[in-house]
């Protein structure tokens, strides 16, 4: 793969070149925080952000998505038959995604693209996307990516990674898609060895800036029941108000619910984000709810991320250390604390 160099001020124009054939999504500040929005012609690229408020998971797994439609009008020939909603999957380039969020789709992918089950919408969207990441020169004090198999310049899940070298951007490609897209954008300045060395130094410097870390080494070998019945859950859960902020902002929370909504005779089958923090998440049709208390729900959230995921996929923890849940939890429930309690729980 290759390494390309471009003057900072030339990047927006290069990205505009891509707009002929692609949707180009970039971080845009609106209402005080960033989210991925289409690159507007008249605007210059704003990459002065720490991260987007919501994780970009909605690009692959929209919060609400109509997947089937049907009619319940018995007079119609196709009454009560589900029909897939046709959708466009335009080629899309996502520019400025942080390495943690790119790694996140790789962790989530194990749920949507398995040897037995293929989620068609997830897979088609993923196929249509090229991820151009932006390395983090200045990680936040709540970032702990380096202790969860990620890092400020981690390339997992990315086609291209941008290194901000001050005057210039270095763009390193890792996939053919990445190569192609840079060609189409007309980004072809070659980077010499000095530049690559500078990039390596930048990466090491950024990694050193991450002061927050979590222990994970014992999680895999812990027994599920011991963690499940550990004495710390009540304390950890006390403050929790059971809102869905942590799960909805999290780049690796993938749970969804499927609902049918009917208006007059016309029905839609909709897939919506769901959250293990909500009582309805486990409410059975019988009326029984196996998770009636918040302590059970908060335990599920942390056990899923830090234990069940490891055991099931042998793929590390289901957390990329982005720190969103720490920063936006209304009552300061800190996942780093959960890591410590679970990892250090005495046997």
């Amino acid at each position: 793969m290759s390494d390309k160099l471009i003057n900072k001020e030339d990047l927006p124009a290069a990205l505009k070149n891509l707009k002929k054939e692609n949707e180009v999504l970039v971080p845009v500040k609106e209402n005080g925080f960033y989210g991925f929005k289409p690159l507007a012609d008249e605007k210059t690229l704003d990459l002065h952000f720490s991260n987007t408020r919501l994780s970009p998971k909605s690009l692959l797994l929209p919060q609400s998505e109509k997947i089937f439609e049907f009619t319940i009008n018995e007079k119609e020939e196709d009454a009560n038959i589900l029909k897939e909603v046709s959708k466009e999957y335009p080629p899309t380039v996502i520019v400025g995604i942080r390495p943690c969020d790119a790694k996140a789709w790789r962790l989530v992918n194990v749920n949507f693209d398995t040897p037995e089950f293929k989620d068609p919408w997830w897979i088609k969207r993923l196929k249509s996307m090229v991820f151009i990441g932006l390395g983090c020169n200045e990680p936040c004090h709540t970032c702990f990516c380096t202790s969860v198999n990620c890092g400020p310049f981690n390339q997992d899940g990315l086609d291209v990674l941008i290194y901000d070298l001050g005057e210039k951007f270095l763009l390193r490609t890792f996939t053919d898609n990445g190569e192609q897209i840079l060609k189409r954008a007309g980004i072809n300045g070659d980077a010499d060895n000095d530049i690559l060395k500078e990039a390596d130094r930048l990466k090491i410097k950024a990694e050193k800036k991450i002061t927050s870390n979590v222990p994970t080494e014992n999680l895999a070998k812990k027994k599920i029941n011991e963690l499940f019945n550990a004495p710390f859950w009540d304390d950890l859960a006390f403050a929790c108000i059971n809102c869905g902020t942590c799960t909805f902002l999290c780049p690796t929370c993938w749970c969804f619910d499927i609902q049918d909504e009917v208006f007059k005779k016309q029905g839609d089958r909709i897939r919506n984000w769901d959250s293990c923090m909500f009582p309805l998440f486990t409410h059975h049709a019988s009326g029984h709810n196996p998770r009636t208390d918040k302590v059970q729900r908060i335990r599920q959230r942390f056990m899923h991320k830090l234990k069940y995921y490891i055991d099931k996929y042998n793929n590390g923890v289901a957390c990329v250390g982005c720190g969103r849940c720490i920063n936006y939890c209304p009552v300061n429930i800190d996942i780093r604390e959960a890591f410590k309690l679970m990892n250090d729980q005495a046997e």
Partner: protein
Amino acid sequence: MIEYLDRIREQANKILKDKKVDVIIGFKKGTIPMTTEPALIRDLEKTDQLYWDSFCNINLASYLPKRNEKIGIIAKGCDSRNIVNHIVENQIKREQLYIIGVPCQGMVDQRKITSFLDGKELEEVSESDENIILKGKGFEHTVKKSDYWQDNCKSCTHRNPAIYDVLAGDLIEEDGDIDSFSDVKDIEGKSFDEKWSFFTDLVNNCIRCYACRNACPLCYCPTCFVDESDPQWVGKSTDRTDTMIFHVLRAYHCAGRCTDCGACEQACPMEIKVRLFTRKLNKDALDLYGWEAGLNTEKRPPLDTYSPDDDDKFIL
């Protein structure tokens, strides 16, 4: 604010030691600047974990319903009013509580500070009587607390606890009748269409995480109407009608009960000004019934009682 800390710990220690209460509900210092975490303290030796500063923005009354033990609780003005609500609404018994009242000097809005810092990362925050001191890499700013108060604290007329057993500091002078509801009046002045588009825009970013609902001490229903599933009352998608129904019904459920503590707004991860819904109802309760919630354990709230003097202009 921080000067209350010693007295809070001292009182908490005393009532636990004297077995007046089984547990204390208060705040712990947060793991990141400008945060606090509600905490349940059972052990005497842990009372020094109790903390108080200008970022104790969550309403601790939320943690009272369904508890059976004797509870010591730290309460600023608005928390105390929600404790009154809980007593009136039979969610907790007065005899169960030992209230350590905190005359509140206003809570600082961490979003406003974050926006002031404009991307610079805060590493340390401290405070004096009037000021907040913000430190990070290459900067130190001293800002006036009152310039960064939460919006609800700016219009607060009940800083002193409405109900308490002991105080963590001297009662302070109330700011009088300063809540002019100018924000509500602005909206009232709009046309029907303008109002609709105003509220539609207001909730446009809502992700239905229900943080506003769950941070609210009034929301203790065993099953919230949005969680009803048999039959289901409200759609679960991000359809704007369903989202609006959630917000409007939530607000109406708070009519005559809301103390404008601002927990809903502080909890919202999308920075939606959800108080603009409830404030209209607070204004109506005041205009129509001369009622402010949570001030008196003996009076029934206007919406669950009838008086021949009740306003009837909307019928007749």
